[in-house]
């Protein structure tokens, strides 16, 4: 057993002793308390029972006293003096018994007393019955004996009356007296047979009265009547008496019932008290025994614990101490003899081991000292060699440092080392100083990176202002990790510059940031070069985009021209067929006009995509503006009012009509679109202005002299100033997808520029915008070419028309037939070639489309020329990028027509070709 266990055992025993004493004390206290309580309760119960009994007894006495005294003092007085107090007493008794019942129920009395609630119930019931029956009996007694109105009083009166009636009738009187004596005797002893005897006498008297000759009828009736009444009253008296007797018996039985109950309760209470006293005595005895036993046990336990501790701990410790003293004196061979497994035993074992080791240690010490001395000598030699090596290493280090210093000083990049804690710059090379705009003189000895960064404003690539702690070296110091970033710097007195820096923390072995090192460069030039490259790339992308548009436009133009050829061709035919005054003629002319405009527009698109010059002629701008406004009115909402101020004398401009038309339309359409929702005013004016050479700076790109000024003004919401410089960029638009391609103003700008003009824009937010277009006026006389109507050229030759579009082939055939020609029309180039091969001399002219399936017009023409060398061929196309004038001439094709072709153009071309003239037109 370990020492802890032994101490624990001792402690447990003491604790057990204390617990036993406490438990004994508690138990005895509780027992005594319960017993005391039981005694008090039992006393109380006894008192209540006695009270109850006394009350009951008193009530009965009062009840009995009533019967004794009422004849003397009267009913009323007796009732007041005896009956009422009796009833009150009963009420008290009932209350006491209920209280007693509750007391017994709530208290911790013995089982026998607890079960006495049955007897209490009976006592209570009996007391209540006594109250009830006593009152009944008193009422009956009153009925019987009340003066004047009581039965006895009545009986006496009747007897008196009878006696009066019978006075003088001796025999009858004798019977009367006999009867009366029986009645009076009955009244005393209340035996029924006496009254029965009275009845018997009255029967006899009755008989005799009935037959008595001396009595008159009236007297007889009176007497018999009195006898009958006497009998009746007597019967009632008997009945009442019987009831009273029954009640007296009842009361007697009640008394017999109650008496044992109270006695039993008192007895039980006394037994409870006795039991409680016995319990106290018993508790006292047991407590004394227990305390004595615990004391004895305590003494024995103490002795046992003392012996246990003494033998197992104290003595062993003393022996161990002696052994240790011997050891201290130098007797290293001493040994402690202890074999116990407790802590002291383990201590002894440990001590012995330790002593043995010390002994062994001392024994081996000398040899070890010698060995150690030799080792020290060799270590010393080694140390001297190391010192020499260190001196050499130090020299190498200094050399390396010098090299490093030279590398740092001569680096092309700025290098800076700053202390982490203070921010003091411990090292900065010359380049670094230069990049910072400082010198050794300006920085002095207290150059601090934390304060230095506050001298300028730094911004990251997103344009956010850098905090002092957000620069690379300050971040590296703060975050403890390398940082690489670009930023640009604004500093007063210096140009803005872009910087690149790579910083890293210098951390010691403990992980603490000692300093920050930063390598930084000025990359401003590189950044600018990058930006320029970006711009060029953007422009190149724009060129590629335009090229793509050109290819697309080409593709669309071909198909679109084919469709226009049909529209213009048939409109032309219809116009010819309609008489001059017919109202449809005007409409057909409008169709032709629109078709021609569409054709011109396709030409514009092709021209725009190829950036080629279009045909320009002196034109009266005012007529184009007027016509454009006329067209515009139909297409814009009525909520937009168009105001125009056109100077018809403003002059002519060398321009492409269609392009000018396009400019007016685009500007007006844009203005109408911004006023589409809420309406407004579209103001268009055309005036002649003179550009003063002194004021040319306000008109960049314009020369001095007269110019036509076209102004288009709207009352929309204006143009945002931030995008004002972008509105002429291709594809730039603020409209929703599908509402605008962003090419309108770009086209306007392009057209104006190509006409050596200028376009300017002013805008006021919320009020509207105004566009000014300046075009130089030409002074040559304007040749207004009116349309000369000459007759169409006709012929009779046989023309082969080939076009894969059946409507176009048919339309062309009709047109040529109108012109007098004989026409064969085919929609297959293969068929046409086969026909031509078969009948080469049949045809005088071949008019063919270029783009046809299986065999293009060009190829077919080549074959036809091979068959018949001089066959004239006219090539017609909507658009073909593969055909130009040179190629036509090379192929031997006589002429080239662009669809859609007007009838006049067609007739002229056909006639010219047939007449042997060489004509070519390239649009």
């Amino acid at each position, binding site marked *: 057993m370990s020492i802890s266990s032994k101490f624990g055992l001792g402690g447990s025993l003491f604790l057990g002793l204390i617990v036993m004493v406490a438990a004994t004390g508690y138990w005895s206290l509780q027992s005594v308390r319960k017993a005391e309580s039981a005694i008090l309760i039992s006393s109380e119960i006894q008192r209540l029972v006695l009270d109850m009994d006394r009350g009951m007894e008193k009530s009965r006495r009062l009840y009995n006293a009533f019967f004794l005294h009422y004849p003397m003092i009267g009913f009323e007085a007796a009732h007041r003096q005896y009956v009422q107090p009796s009833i009150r007493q009963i009420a008290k008794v009932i209350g006491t018994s209920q209280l007693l019942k509750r007391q017994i129920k709530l208290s911790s009395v013995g089982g026998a007393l607890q079960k006495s609630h*049955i*007897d*209490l*119930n*009976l006592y209570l*019931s*009996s007391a209540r*019955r006594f109250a009830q*029956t006593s009152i009944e009996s008193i009422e009956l007694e009153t009925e019987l004996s009340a003066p004047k109105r009581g039965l006895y009083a009545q009986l006496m009166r009747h007897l008196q009356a009878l006696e009066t009636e019978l006075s003088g009738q001796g025999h009858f009187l004798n019977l009367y007296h006999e009867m009366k004596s029986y009645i009076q005797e009955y009244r005393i002893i209340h*035996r*029924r*047979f*006496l009254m*029965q*005897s009275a*009845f*018997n006498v009255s*029967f*006899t008297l009755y008989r005799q009265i009935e037959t008595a000759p001396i009595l008159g009828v009236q007297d007889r009736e009176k007497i018999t009547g009195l006898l009958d009444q006497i009998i009746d009253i007597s019967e009632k008296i*008997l*009945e009442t008496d*019987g009831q009273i*007797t*029954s*009640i007296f*018996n*009842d009361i007697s*039985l*009640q008394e017999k*019932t109650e008496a044992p109950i109270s006695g039993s309760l008192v007895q039980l209470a006394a037994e409870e008290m006795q039991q409680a006293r016995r319990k106290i005595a018993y508790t006292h005895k047991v407590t004394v025994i227990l305390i004595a036993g615990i004391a004895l046990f305590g003494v024995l336990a103490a002795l046992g614990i003392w012996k246990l501790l003494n033998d197992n701990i104290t003595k062993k410790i003393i022996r161990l101490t002696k052994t240790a003293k011997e050891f201290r004196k130098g007797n290293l061979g001493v040994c402690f003899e202890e074999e116990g497994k407790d802590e002291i035993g383990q201590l002894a074992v440990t001590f012995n081991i330790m002593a043995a080791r010390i002994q062994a240690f001392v024994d081996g010490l000398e040899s070890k000292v010698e060995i150690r001395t030799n080792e020290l000598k060799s270590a010393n030699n080694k140390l001297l060699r190391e010192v020499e090596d260190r001196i050499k290493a130090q020299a190498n280090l200094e050399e390396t440092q010098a090299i490093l210093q030279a590398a740092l000083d001569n680096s092309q990049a700025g290098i800076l080392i700053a202390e982490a804690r203070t921010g003091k710059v411990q090292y900065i090379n010359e380049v670094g100083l230069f990049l910072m705009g400082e010198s050794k003189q300006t920085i002095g000895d207290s150059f601090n990176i934390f304060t230095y960064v506050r001298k300028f404003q730094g911004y990251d690539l997103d344009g956010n202002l850098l905090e002092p702690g957000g620069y690379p070296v300050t971040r590296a110091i703060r975050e403890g990790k390398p940082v690489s970033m670009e930023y640009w710097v604004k500093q007063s007195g210096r140009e803005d510059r872009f910087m690149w820096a790579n910083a890293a923390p210098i951390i010691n072995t403990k992980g603490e940031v000692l300093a920050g090192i930063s390598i930084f460069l000025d990359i401003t030039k590189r950044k600018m070069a990058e930006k320029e490259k970006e711009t060029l790339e953007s422009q190149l992308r724009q060129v590629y985009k335009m090229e793509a548009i050109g290819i697309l436009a080409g593709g669309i133009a071909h198909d679109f021209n084919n469709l226009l050829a049909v529209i213009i061709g048939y409109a032309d035919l219809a116009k010819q067929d309609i008489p001059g005054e017919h109202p449809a003629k005007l409409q057909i002319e409008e169709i032709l006009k629109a078709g021609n405009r569409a054709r011109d527009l396709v030409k514009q698109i092709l021209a725009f995509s190829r950036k080629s010059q279009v045909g320009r002629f002196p034109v009266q701008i005012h007529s184009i503006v007027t016509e454009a406004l006329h067209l515009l009115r139909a297409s814009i909402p009525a909520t937009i009012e168009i105001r125009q101020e056109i100077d018809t004398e403003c002059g002519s401009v060398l321009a492409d009509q269609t392009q000018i038309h396009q400019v007016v339309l685009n500007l007006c359409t844009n203005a109408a679109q911004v006023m589409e929702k809420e309406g407004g005013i579209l103001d268009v004016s055309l005036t002649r202005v003179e550009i003063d050479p002194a004021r040319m700076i306000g008109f960049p790109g314009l020369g001095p002299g007269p110019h036509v000024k076209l102004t288009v003004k709207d009352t929309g919401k204006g143009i945002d100033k931030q995008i004002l410089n972008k509105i002429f960029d291709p594809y730039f638009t603020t409209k929703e997808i599908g509402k605008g391609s962003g090419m309108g103003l770009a086209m306007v700008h392009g057209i104006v520029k190509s006409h050596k003009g200028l376009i300017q824009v002013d805008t006021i937010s919320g009020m509207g915008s105004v566009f000014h277009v300046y075009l130089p006026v030409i002074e040559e006389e304007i040749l207004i070419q009116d349309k000369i109507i000459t007759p169409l050229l006709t012929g009779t030759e046989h023309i082969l028309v080939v076009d894969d579009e059946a409507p176009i082939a048919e339309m062309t055939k009709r047109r040529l037939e109108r012109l007098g020609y004989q026409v064969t029309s085919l929609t297959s180039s293969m068929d046409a070639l086969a026909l031509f091969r078969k009948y080469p001399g049949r045809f005088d002219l071949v008019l063919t489309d270029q783009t046809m399936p299986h065999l293009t017009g060009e190829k077919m023409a080549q074959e036809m020329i091979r068959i018949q060398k001089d066959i004239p061929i006219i090539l017609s196309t909507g658009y073909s990028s593969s055909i130009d004038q040179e190629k036509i001439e090379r192929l031997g094709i006589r002429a080239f027509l662009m669809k859609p072709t007007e009838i006049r153009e067609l007739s002229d071309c056909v006639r010219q070709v047939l007449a042997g003239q060489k004509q070519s037109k390239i649009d």
Partner: protein
Amino acid sequence: MPRFKSIISSALPLAVWFVFFSCGGQAPSFECTDTLGCVHVEPGDPLKIGVLQALSGKVASLGMEQIRGFELAIDQKNGQVLGHSFLLQKEDTGCTSEGGANAVLKILADPQTIAIFGTTCSGAARTASHAMSEAGLVMISGNNSAPFLTSIGGKAAPEWHPGYFRTANNEENAGKAAAIFAFQKLGIRRVATINDTDIYTRGLTDGFRQSFEKQGGKIVLDTSINKGETVMGPVLTAVYNAGAQLLFFPLFQPEGNLILTAAGENPELRNIVLMSDGALIEDSFIQDVREKGKGMYFVGPVSPKNPAVDALSRKYLAKYTTLPANYYYLNAYDAAMLLFGAIETIAVQEADGSLHIGRNALRRALYATRDHKGVTGDLTCDEFGDCSQAAFNVLRLDDPDAGVRALQENVIFTYTPE
């Protein structure tokens, strides 16, 4: 610490077991919904029955026969009903109304009383049944026969109280039977009646009077004596004076005995026909009066005769080593069996054997008695508590030495109400 933990770990399952068995083992508590309350009988506790019988005086023999009949019924049940034995609290009513009133209080004081068996005398039953009914109990008698306790003419009688039952016949027709016999068989035309003011005796004399006068007879004297009266001379003188041919005196002992004796001693009454009631169909009466009673008539309920009666009488003999003094123990036996059957029907028994007996349920079970095979015949309890079919015999004592058995066999006239 490990030791402490081991103590805790070993004590914990014990605590859990204790809690489980003390809480989980408890059955859900019974909730009494009976309007009159319930009696809860713990496992092993007896069923407490209050016994109100005349245990003193001359009528004690009647009371004793009632108790014996009840005890035989207990034996028939092997001393137990629903695993519980019986505890009989016997109280003496003394055959008076006040005696019944006081005796019933003793019974009612204990709320554990399930039912009351009694009374002997109808007078005691009058007060006892009132108190019993108010307390919510049931009371079943094998002896009461006064019509005033149940019904008269099919209507509730003045002293009827809910919860009162009897297996003895309602003798509202007993007086009638006697009157018919007297008038039609004996040719009597003038009758004197004496009762002891008890509702039983008065009921009989009233019944006799009504029937006799209806037939055309005359009641020349209708008088009473007090219970306990010993001097009968004057009342017999009155009988003589009235000129009665027959004296109908349905009294108990000893008053009946004294009347008979006094009548015998009065030469003026030697020719008068004497008739009494079933209360005197008692061996102790016969043994007391002997030759003086010879020729006397008795009107009483028809005594049952069947194998069950024979078997029960054998049991009576075996248990009490004497023949029964009268046959009213049979009614007591039937009353007890009805009561036990009703308890068995309505008691709610818990798994531990405890019982919950609803008081109103017990009443209803008794009122619901239909064609119960009793030793006295088929018993069906009506709404007023009458459970037996009434039929009356007029007996005549011809051979006092042959005892009550011979008297019971000597049926002169039988009357069965329609």
